[in-house]
C-alpha cells in the first residue's frame, strides 16, 4: 500500500522543534549580532590573535615538514627552505599511503556499523515501550565509562582466539556499537512530534517503515554528526591498532606514525612530514562537513 509521505501532516513545513536551524552568520539577526566600528576592528583583532595561537603548532610542523634534513635545526619559525622531498620520503618509507587506506577502511566499517546499531537501539529506547527500559538504558550509558585499559587485553585475547589479528574485522570489532551514538540519537528521536507517530500508526505503517521513511530523514543532521564523530574517533585510535596489528601492512596511519616517530628520531622533519600527511584527510573532512557537524549537534543532543 503506497504511503504518501509528503502530505502536510507528516512532513512539517518547518523543522520540528529540537531539530536545529543553522544559526550561522547567514541566519543571524544582522542588526543585532553584527559589531560595528571599533568593536568590529577589536573583534577582528582578537579573532586573529587567537587564530595565530591555535594554528601555531600546525604552522611550525608544516614548516619543518618542508625543510631538508640539514636545515631542520635552524630557525624553526621561518620557512627558510622549501622542498617536497621530505613529504615524499615520509610517504614512501613510512608506507603512509597503504596505512591511510587501512585507516579509511576501518573507519568506514566502524562508522557504518555504529550508525546502524545506534539507530536501531536509539529508536527502541526512544519510541518503543518495554519493561526495564530505563535500567537497560542506564546500563548502556555506563559502558561509556569503562576505560579502554580495562577491556583491551581481554578483547585482544577474544580477537586473537577468533583469528582476527591483522584483519580489518579485528581492527573494527570492539567498536561496532557505541552508547554515545545511542545517546545522541535517542535525544533527537525523542523530539519527534507525537502526532507523526500517531499518524503513521493510523496509516498502518510499522516501526521499521516509520523509521526508514519518516524518522531517519528528519534526523539526518544528527546522523551526519554521529557519522563524523565515529569516523574521527576511529581514525584517531591509538591503543587498539597498536595492539592488534603485528604485520606492518595492516597498520593504521596512527600506528604508522608511531613507527615513523620511533624509527626516525634523528629526523624530526620526516616525522613532522608524516604528521602532516596523517592530518590532511581529517582536515579536509572537517572543512567539508563542519557546518553539518554543528547542525547535527544542535538537534537536541546537547539539550540533555
Amino acid at each position, binding site marked *: 500500500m503506497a504511503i504518501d509521505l509528503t502530505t502536510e501532516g507528516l512532513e512539517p513545513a518547518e523543522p520540528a522543534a529540537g531539530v536545529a536551524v543553522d544559526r550561522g552568520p547567514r541566519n543571524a539577526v544582522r542588526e543585532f549580532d553584527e559589531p560595528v566600528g571599533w568593536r568590529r576592528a577589536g573583534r577582528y583583532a582578537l579573532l586573529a590573535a587567537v*587564530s595565530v595561537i591555535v594554528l601555531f603548532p600546525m604552522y611550525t610542523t608544516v614548516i619543518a615538514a618542508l625543510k631538508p634534513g640539514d636545515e631542520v635545526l635552524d630557525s624553526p619559525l621561518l620557512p627558510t627552505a622549501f622542498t617536497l622531498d621530505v613529504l615524499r620520503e615520509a610517504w614512501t618509507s613510512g608506507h603512509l599511503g597503504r596505512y591511510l587506506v587501512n585507516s579509511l577502511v576501518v573507519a568506514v566499517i566502524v562508522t557504518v556499523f555504529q550508525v546502524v546499531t545506534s539507530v536501531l537501539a536509539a529508536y527502541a529506547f526512544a519510541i518503543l515501550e518495554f519493561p526495564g527500559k530505563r535500567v537497560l538504558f542506564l546500563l548502556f550509558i555506563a559502558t561509556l565509562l569503562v576505560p579502554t585499559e580495562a577491556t583491551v587485553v581481554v578483547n585482544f585475547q577474544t580477537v586473537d582466539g577468533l583469528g582476527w589479528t591483522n584483519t580489518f574485522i579485528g581492527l573494527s570489532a570492539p567498536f561496532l556499537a557505541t552508547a554515545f551514538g545511542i545517546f545522541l540519537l535517542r535525544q533527537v528521536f525523542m523530539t519527534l512530534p507525537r502526532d507523526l507517530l500517531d499518524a503513521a500508526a493510523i496509516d498502518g505503517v510499522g516501526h521499521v517503515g516509520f523509521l526508514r521513511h519518516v524518522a531517519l530523514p528528519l534526523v539526518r543532521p544528527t546522523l551526519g554528526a554521529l557519522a563524523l564523530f565515529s569516523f574521527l574517533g576511529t581514525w584517531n585510535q591509538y591503543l587498539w591498532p597498536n595492539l592488534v596489528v603485528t604485520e606492518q601492512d595492516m597498520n593504521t596511519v596512527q600506528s604508522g606514525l608511531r613507527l615513523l616517530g620511533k624509527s626516525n628520531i634523528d629526523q624530526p622533519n620526516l616525522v613532522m612530514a608524516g604528521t602532516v600527511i596523517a592530518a590532511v584527510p581529517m582536515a579536509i573532512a572537517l572543512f567539508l562537513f563542519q557546518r553539518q557537524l554543528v547542525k547535527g549537534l544542535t538537534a537536541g543532543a546537547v539539550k540533555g
Partner: protein
Amino acid sequence: MAMLLPSAVILGVFVVYPLGRAMVLGQQRCDNFGNNCVSNGLDQYVDLFRSIEFQNALGVTIRFALITVPLGVLAGVGLAVLADKYLRTIGGFRTVFSSTVATSVAVASLMWLFLLQPSVGALANMGWFTSIFPSVKDPGWLQDPGTALVAVAISSVWANLGFTFILVTAGLQSIPRDLHEAAAVDGAGGVRRFWSITVPLLGPTLLFVVVVSSTRAFQAYGEIDILTGGGPQPENPTTTIPYFIYGQNSPIRNDVGLQAGAAVLLFLLLLALSGLQLAGIGRRVHYGD
C-alpha cells in the same frame, strides 16, 4: 526489542565481558604470561588502591584533570563566544578554531614534542618566549619535573580545543536569539546577557563537555607515551593511572592481575566522578526553555 540486539551483543562481548573478566583477574596474581593465577580476594583491590604507586598515579591523574578540564572548558567557551558574531569571514575563523579536531593524539603529541624540544623546538628558540619562561630552553618543559605535567596538559587541551569549540558553538546556537533580543531591548548589556542567559542555557552543553573532558583526562595515555614516557626522572610526575598500567617503565608491566585490578579501579573512579558531576552540576542545569 530485537532492535537492541546488535548493540547489546557487541557491547556485551567487547565491553561488559572484558570488564567482568578484568574484575575477576584483578584479585588474582599471575605469572608473566598470565597463567598459573592465584586468587587473593578483594583485599588485593584494597591493597592496590592504597599502595604508594597507585596513590601517586591517582594524584597525578587528578592534577592532570584539574588542569585540563577547566582550561579546556574555558578555552572552548571563550573561543565559541568570540566567534559567535555576524562577521563575513567568521566561517573561516570557525574552521580555524575547530581545526584541532583533525589532529589525533599521536599527531598532536608529536607536534608538541617537536615544539618543546630544548635544542631544536620552536618554542624553546623564540627569544622573547624564553626570556619570560627560561625553563622552556633549559632544561626544557618536558624535562623539568615541575613543568612536565603542565606541558603535557597544554598539549592535551590544544588537541581537544576543536572538539570543545564545536560542542559549545552548537550549544550557543541552540539558544533562541529572541531571548537575547528581548533582554537587550530591556537594557541588558552584553556581559549581563552572557551571565543571565547564555551561561544557564549552556548548562547541558557545559555538563556534557565537562564529563567528556574529565573522562578523557582520566584516560590520558598516548600523550604521555609520546611526550614524556612517564615523566622526567626520578619523580616521574606524569605517570597517570593508564600509564601506570601500560607504560613502558611501569613496575606492574608483567603482572596481569595488578594491571586488570588497576583498570577496574579506574573504572570505579570514573563511575564515581561522573556520578559526582551529574549530581553536582547536573542538578543546576536547566533543561528546555
